[in-house]
């Protein structure tokens, strides 16, 4: 790689009156490759204690939901113990929950399935409305909050959400699809985000995680990769 010219000029061309969506500023770059230390920072590791977005009732319902979508089995914990509800809570408290990155200008109209989601509600609002409707539906039909139902009763309601029989006031199947996607993402994402505790899902399927070099393994055909998974923020050996 050629050595960059040291006379790098990197200057803001105007005062910062309005930040860009990425928070970066317009820049003039000339004379060599610019260098900005730690431009892309590693993700902060979330603190798993408490809730950042959900109320305690909402949290109880979501923990119940994720533990039926991904139930525990003798080898691998379920969605609740894997931290899927914590993952969803932290995601909803951040830019994902507010749909900060999405095109949210109106007017809002329902379109065809091929035109994609047209909801004016960002995910955090969607959860708030749907979870309230879920507990109400559960109380109305089974006289208990969703989290207090038996596994069989919970599964029955989830099947009704999946089929569109129960809508929770939104578009049919919308909340089922939303929470299923978010739960599975929490289950399989790096544990740094609060789900997939202990890399449980990666151990379950055989994914070695945040490794970056399989040069020695690419042509060892039909051999099981022998090393345990590692995460961005965790390694089995680090914790003794």
């Amino acid at each position: 790689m050629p050595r960059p010219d040291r006379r790098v000029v990197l200057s803001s061309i105007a005062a910062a009156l309005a930040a860009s969506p990425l928070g970066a500023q317009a820049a003039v770059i000339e004379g060599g490759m610019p260098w900005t230390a730690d431009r892309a920072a590693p993700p902060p590791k979330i603190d798993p204690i408490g809730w950042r977005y959900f109320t305690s009732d909402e949290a109880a319902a979501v923990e119940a939901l994720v533990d039926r979508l991904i139930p525990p089995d003798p080898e691998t914990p379920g969605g609740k113990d894997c931290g899927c509800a914590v993952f969803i809570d932290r995601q909803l408290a951040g830019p994902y929950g507010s749909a900060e990155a999405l095109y949210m200008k109106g007017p809002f109209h329902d379109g065809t399935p091929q035109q994609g989601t047209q909801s004016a509600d960002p995910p955090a609002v969607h959860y708030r409305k749907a979870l309230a409707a879920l507990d109400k539906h559960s109380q109305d039909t089974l006289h208990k909050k969703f989290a207090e139902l038996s596994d069989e009763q919970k599964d029955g309601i989830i099947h009704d959400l999946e089929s569109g029989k129960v809508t929770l006031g939104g578009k049919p199947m919308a909340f089922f699809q939303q929470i299923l996607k978010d739960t599975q993402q929490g289950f399989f994402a790096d544990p740094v985000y609060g789900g997939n505790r202990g890399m449980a899902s990666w151990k379950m399927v055989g994914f070695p995680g945040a490794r970056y070099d399989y040069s020695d393994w690419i042509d060892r055909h039909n051999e099981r990769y022998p090393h345990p998974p590692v995460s961005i923020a965790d390694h089995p050996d680090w914790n003794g």
Partner: protein
Amino acid sequence: MARKLPAKDVVIVGLGWTGAILAHELAQEGLDIVAIERGPWRDTATDFSPAYAQDELRYRIRHELFLRPAQTSLTFRNNRSQTALPVREWGAFMLGNGVGGGGLHWNAETWRFLPSDFSLRSHLTQRYGAGAIPDDMTIQDWGVTYDELEPHYDKFEYLCGTSGTAGNLKGVIQSGGNPFEGPRGRPYPTPAQKQGYGHALFGKGAAELGYKPFPQPSGNLSQAYTNPLGVEMGPCTYCGFCEWFGCANYSKASPQTTILPVLLRHKNFTARTECEVTKILLDKEGRHATGVTFVDTSGTEWEQPAELVILSAFQLFNVQLLLLSGVGKRYDPLTGEGQIGRNFSHQTVSTAYGFFDNKKFNFNPFAASGAIGMCVDEFNGDNFDHGGKGFVGGGYLGQVQTNGRPIETTALPKGTPLWGLKWKEAMRDNYLSTINAGSACHGSCYSYKTNHLDLDPTYVDRFGRPLVRMTMDFHDNELKMSAYLTDRYAEILKAMGAREVVKKPRKGPYDVTDYQTSHLCGGAIMGTSPQNSALNRYLQSWDVPNLFVQGATAFPQNAGYNPTDTVGALAYWSAQAIRSQYLKHPGPLVDA
């Protein structure tokens, strides 16, 4: 009122592959050049750390490296009877943002198009008669030939260090390569990448069926390489975090890893980042571009005067700028008149999942590269007799599985529930023993009268400018082709020993939520006259001769390959014409 900057010789709109190539070529002519890029500067050492680049949620799911729809988007409808609605989150394709453009987040599949792809309408008419081409299909010849582009393909591949096995050297077919490819002047710069078990097994199964499998040409390098500019790249480590990610190993060809370090040493080159070009400025007659306006992050609008304007943004935004600036005549799908927005195309991708006995097969799907894989080309373009098939076009077939990232590696046998214990068990039992290549059948997408781009009447971007409106649907030709390719692919999976094969042919209507590829094409196509194209064979605007429009925007239709090698070749071809002809005699390079 825009504040006026000192004039430049050249203004380049967008600093991805084509912007970087044009800037580097024209900088060698001593021209004073500025490239204006909407997104941020990014580079390997500062932005892609091997300690945390392999983050599926951050980069693949939350799209950290991409344009945010909040910044700008497009609207979409299948046909004119529908109201187009905004694409609120990305789905069918991904739009890059920032220095490097699509060249940063691509998988680096580096394919040449077939010689017959460049003369598509004449070739098909000659072989099958004009009746074989549906009436509403608007495919046409490119106005440039494979032989003319060959040296420029070569230049781009040697810039990138592409790893592959030649199939045709100066007309002599080579064993182990693609026997259908056009003749190449010399071998690939580096040997083909290694193949994983699933990829190699596909090659074996395909050979048993009588096909001629070969390794996919890859811009993830098999070995260290120093390109002709003196920039060094490292060998790929098969990390499985390629497309949607930046490469922390200097192994994936990108503007950053091949050209920018040299370009930035030119004292006559300047890049402006986080600045969005809002308009191409024309003189009173509309026949000469005088520069561009852009807006920086403070909201200040600037005018950048220039003698030569190179449009090298992503396909959609090239077309949007042409429409907003009044370059040329807007296409009218009812009359067929006008060129800007015409012949929009994408890709027709399909796949089949192969489920194997997990006691006998272990594919380690996580060990892979972006452009790994074994492919066959028997069913691409016009490599096979289309007589009686009921369609034209085709695509390569390949076990081109690029990763085992678990959020997206969720293909499960038929009948598996979407959740619950049975889902969990199926994930556990199939992850290591399933072939699941997203773009296994990489089909062509030909152009039609009705598929086009214009400006939306309702929805606007953050500056209040109309969004591009995409009117797009699949036609029977593409759906029949997809079914045919998917059947052939499924046969190979069976030959590999799959116990269950689930076919996923492409179905209509075109769905903007379902990821295919980011290969959007057309809208300002190249051709032989102003009556059939927006650009001449050198990518020069027929209407505004000091404006050149780069990229897949110029493709009259899309072939059954990934487009980047052709985009790079066209950029070098266009740059050569500017350097050797235009700069000596500024004006039209082809008489209208």
